[in-house]
């Protein structure tokens, strides 16, 4: 009844190729965006449920948005191009530390040739984007082996990037501006003279980034380059025979993916943590991101959001349920139970729907079209 594209005639190719071809989808998206951009800040401003305290913003929504952004990046590589990566955490770290370096001033003494490279501290926005760019460059570099190595072998090989950069940011003091502890602090978030400080402002900042990058990603994957990625994913030899250059397709996927992941890393460090060490981007983060894209749905932008929400929020919720219900069990038992339940749910979801939440969503859409009168 409500969700049916009958009567929506497409009279041009452009309309047929539109990013959201169904009118109801567009309306839903606009409502969602309006709610995210206006509704949530209003609720937070007037401290209405569920945003009575800034817990919801600071501990749920901001990390959710940033991790969803990272998941989009990972999804481009794993879901669209089929190159499994266990090194996403490292690319977040590269984004974070590069942005930090650009934000606090780059100084490379090149004494042996009697010169030096000096870049004055950049504003936050270019720092974050340059962080993404650095991550993309390194991504291309570490994407090279994918031309020769495939599947799980590649996955394990990407761990080389993970552990190498864990080490680099621990050991090379230049990256941490010679801080004695090796932990660094984000510069203050000033955009064109406007200081982003309160949770609402931080939330909106992340939301703008996520919305922009999600739209860019959505556009990329339906265009020429996205189709190349998917061809490579489905059968790389066949794709090559059709005239798709694997070198270009795979490396571009690595670059775009690493760029987005790097920007997410910079946001995670600057906006969410504020002060961080390499452990914030460890292998656990990589696995978490991979879970998000697989539970959410490989090859789906929407899935990245659903997966991020599920993987981030589930343990937090489970952790609070016994306490909220007043069940007197110790935090130790609770956190072990969270482990068990999360693991079991992941296995269960993989069994019942290996294609993730995104597939469930599309099934639901199919059903909605026929509702309430199926044939």
């Amino acid at each position, binding site marked *: 009844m409500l969700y049916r594209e009958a009567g929506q005639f497409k009279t041009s190719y452009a309309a047929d190729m539109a990013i959201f071809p169904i009118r109801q989808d567009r309306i839903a998206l606009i409502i969602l965006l309006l709610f995210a951009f206006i509704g949530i800040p209003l609720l937070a401003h007037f401290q209405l449920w569920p945003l009575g305290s800034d817990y919801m913003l600071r501990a749920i929504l901001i990390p959710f948005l940033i991790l969803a952004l990272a998941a989009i990046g990972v999804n481009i590589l794993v879901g669209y191009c089929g190159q499994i990566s266990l090194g996403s955490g490292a690319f977040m770290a590269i984004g974070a530390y590069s942005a930090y370096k650009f934000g606090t001033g780059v100084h490379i003494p090149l004494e042996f040739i009697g010169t030096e490279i000096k870049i004055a501290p950049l504003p936050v926005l270019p720092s974050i984007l340059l962080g993404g760019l650095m991550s993309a460059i390194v991504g291309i570099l570490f994407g090279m082996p994918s031309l020769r190595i495939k599947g799980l072998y590649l996955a394990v090989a990407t761990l080389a990037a993970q552990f190498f950069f864990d080490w680099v940011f621990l050991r090379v003091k230049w990256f941490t501006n010679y801080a*004695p502890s090796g932990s660094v602090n984000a510069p203050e978030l000033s955009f064109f003279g406007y200081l982003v400080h309160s949770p609402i402002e931080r939330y909106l900042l992340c939301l703008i980034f996520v919305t922009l990058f999600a739209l860019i990603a959505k556009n990329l994957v339906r265009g020429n380059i996205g189709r190349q990625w998917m061809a490579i994913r489905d059968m790389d030899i066949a794709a090559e025979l059709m005239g798709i250059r694997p070198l270009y397709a795979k490396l571009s996927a690595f670059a775009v993916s690493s760029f987005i992941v790097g920007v997410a890393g910079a946001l995670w460090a600057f906006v969410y943590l504020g002060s961080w*060490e390499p452990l914030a981007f460890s292998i656990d983060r990589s696995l978490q991101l991979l879970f998000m894209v697989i539970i959410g749905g490989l090859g789906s932008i929407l899935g990245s959001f659903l997966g991020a929400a*599920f993987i981030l929020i589930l343990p937090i919720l*489970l952790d*609070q*349920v016994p306490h909220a219900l007043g069940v007197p069990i110790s935090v*130790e038992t609770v956190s072990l139970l969270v482990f068990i339940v999360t693991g079991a749910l992941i296995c269960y979801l993989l069994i019942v*729907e290996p294609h993730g939440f995104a597939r469930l969503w599309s099934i639901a859409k199919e059903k909605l079209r026929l509702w309430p009168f199926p044939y």
Partner: protein
Amino acid sequence: MLRKTLAFATAASAVLSGAGIMLSAGPAMAQNEQFIPRLVYRTGAYAPNGIPFANGAADYITMLNERDGGINGIKLVMEECETGYATDKGVECYERLKGKGPTGAAYFSPLSTGITFALTEKAPGDKIPLLTTGYGRSESRNGAVFAWNFIAVGSYWTAADIAIQHIAKELGGFDKLKGKKISLVYHDSPYGKEPIAALEVRAKLNGFNFKAIPVTHPGVEQKSQWLAIRQDRPDYVLLWGWGVMNSTSIKEAAAVAYPRDKIIGVWWSGAEPDVIPAGDQAKGYKALMLQHGAGQFAVHADIEKNVYAKGQGVGKDTFGQVLYNRGLIDSLIGTEAIRTAQAKFGKKPLTGEEVRWGFENLNLTAARIKELGFEGMLAPIKFSCEDHQGADQGRVHQWDGKEWKIISDFYTADRKILDPMVAEYSAKYAAEKKITPRDCSKEK
């Protein structure tokens, strides 16, 4: 199909109902209670060390409630949140707990250098003090810049200085340090890196050769580090480990036949979970004491009588251990700060800002410490607006295979060396974060 629908429904309803529970769980607390959040880790790689500390801290607060009905009649309510020693989880716990209770959290005690660093950025905005007993940012002693950090009793720089003093004493004087080799085996994290700066200063001053050897988290693989030590033959090894890394270090030291009595651990490497897994190989191993060691004192008798005798308490099997006792001291300092603040602001639940005043005016004299049952564990501590550390002392104890034996008197860290470092690094932090240091002479 049915299964899929079911799965989706289960997942969705779980999330929704959970969200409902989480959000509806408003402050169900009475108005006359002081809320104390407790960030703990009772699971994961560092649980063996996290558990006794958490037990001690919790038991002390329970004891205050049972014996005195809280502090001046204000009941203390605590809630634990499991961080698993992970920074992002710690931040989430902080956000979850900071607003609970009628006046919000009194103070946070994260027991993780990484979480401390992250919360140092957030605490000033929320006006909640951070109590870091014997860990955290060493330069946060400077209360003018780090207004909300209280690195009570000792910092890693204090520890490094005391360790070198002890080595000098064993060798027979500071002049004997010249030309000696001292290596630091450290946990490769902010925690392990903190002492390096102080040790480098000392190395320059006393003329010993200093070498830092990192061990990758979590520290289960140290063979190459100890083979390098065997080849290098340093005169002393300082150990800056946490969790499994400590016992592994001792075992590997034994495997390369490095004498254990030449290894001196920091106070986070000198507790029962660090030596017991190494068995006999740990015999002779020394570690610094954050003033206190293991054993039972007057306060333990009180806990026995008021907590365990009533069937409460969580730390029976860790009772009187080094980290358990440190947990007691952590809660002691926090609760005494609340008591001090109540003297000024009245006997009611206090906000974090008021508790901070309590910290800055906390003066635990020897008489007061005795009264509280901590005599023999703790030397006098006095905080002020400038000095957020309050004490500079430490001792050394040695594991004899069964228990820790105290083998030294109190050493006092040399503030002539450390104070300029605190000033330098905190000034750097202030410049980086654009903080204008408080003028402490104007605070009362």
